């Protein structure tokens, strides 16, 4: 074997990837976060969900920026929740956006509040990637990155995901896909504004696999929207019963 073909003992990307876990473990709930549908859930891949597999690429260009991609991504990680729209609340762990860490999400949707989360699957100085768990509307990944193109910096959000279950697939086709697009457009616009630049966000969509995966229809039992709805109704009922009892 050619020596150059041999694997190095410690690959250069070793520290960038999360360690393989069977199920997610959330250590501590950040203040103000509703923590449901993450603990003990397995992560999913873009191949594991039910709906059509889409790759969406959102880009915004910082023209003539003096900042480096690494500076921008560092700020993006550190202030990740601030760049989200108000209806999409992210709660990173105290450790921050690092490989293996869980970020809780409380999102306001037309179906009510939804509690879910993501795990940081990969992180290097120019990019980071989140992977979704069972019950999340999407099964797949989203990668945030910045890169130097000539004198400009290109900010990018790229999702590779499919709806996790049939209910989500219907929702995405009716309304949720557009809502999600607006979230990532908001994030890029807010990040660009942070660096003092206006942003025109472009979106490129590609349907990677148009098929529905009927073998994954059972994912609906983990549906975070439904579980949160049940939790919300039952907790209100409990309060009502307690109020009547006193």
């Amino acid at each position, binding site marked *: 074997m050619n020596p*150059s073909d041999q694997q190095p003992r410690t690959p250069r990307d070793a520290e960038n990837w999360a360690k393989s876990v069977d199920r997610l473990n959330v250590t501590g709930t950040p203040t103000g976060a509703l923590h449901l549908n993450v603990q003990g859930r397995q992560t999913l891949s873009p191949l594991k969900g039910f709906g059509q*597999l889409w790759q969406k690429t959102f880009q915004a260009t910082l023209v003539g920026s003096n900042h480096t991609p690494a500076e921008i991504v560092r700020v993006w990680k550190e202030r990740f929740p601030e760049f989200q729209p108000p209806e999409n609340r992210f709660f990173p762990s105290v450790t921050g956006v690092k490989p293996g860490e869980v970020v809780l999400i409380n999102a306001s949707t037309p179906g009510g509040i939804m509690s879910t989360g993501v795990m940081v699957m990969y992180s290097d100085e120019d990019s980071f990637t989140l*992977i979704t768990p069972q019950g999340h509307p999407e099964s797949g990944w989203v990668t945030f990155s910045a890169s130097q193109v000539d004198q400009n910096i290109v900010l990018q959000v790229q999702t590779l995901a499919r709806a996790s279950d049939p209910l989500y697939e219907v929702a995405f086709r009716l309304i949720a896909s557009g809502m999600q697009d607006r979230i990532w457009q908001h994030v890029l616009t807010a990040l660009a504004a942070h660096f003092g630049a206006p942003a025109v966000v472009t979106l490129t969509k590609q349907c990677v696999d148009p098929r529905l995966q009927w073998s994954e229809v059972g994912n609906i039992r983990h549906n975070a929207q439904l579980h949160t709805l049940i939790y919300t109704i039952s907790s209100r009922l409990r309060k009502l019963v307690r109020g009547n009892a006193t």
Partner: protein
Amino acid sequence: MPNKPFSASLREPVMHLNKGVIIDLHGEINGTVEVALNAAYDRAEAEDVHSIVLNFGGVDYINSTGIALIVGLLARARKSSRLLIVFGLSDHYMDIFNITRLVDFMNVYPDEQSAVAQLSQLQ
């Protein structure tokens, strides 16, 4: 240490291993290699084979964008009812294929011998 340039080449001469061909991958797999990787896959598909075998033995770096490219190949393989087989993953890249759940959808073998043996059984 300078990055190794990426290459993706069909094993020459193209070996029709019981309706399968091997693509040898070398170097760093990241977003910049999309064209080269897809071109190699295109050439493999043109051989009209049932199985495409990816040899990761020479890969020394994969980032998340690179893994997304592998997912793209897997989606193409599933669409055309081809089997995507992988060998040569180090323990580290095996972990990555576990965490990204790619192992659920690929036939992963430790070495070329076992991958080729599997192709023989499929015939």
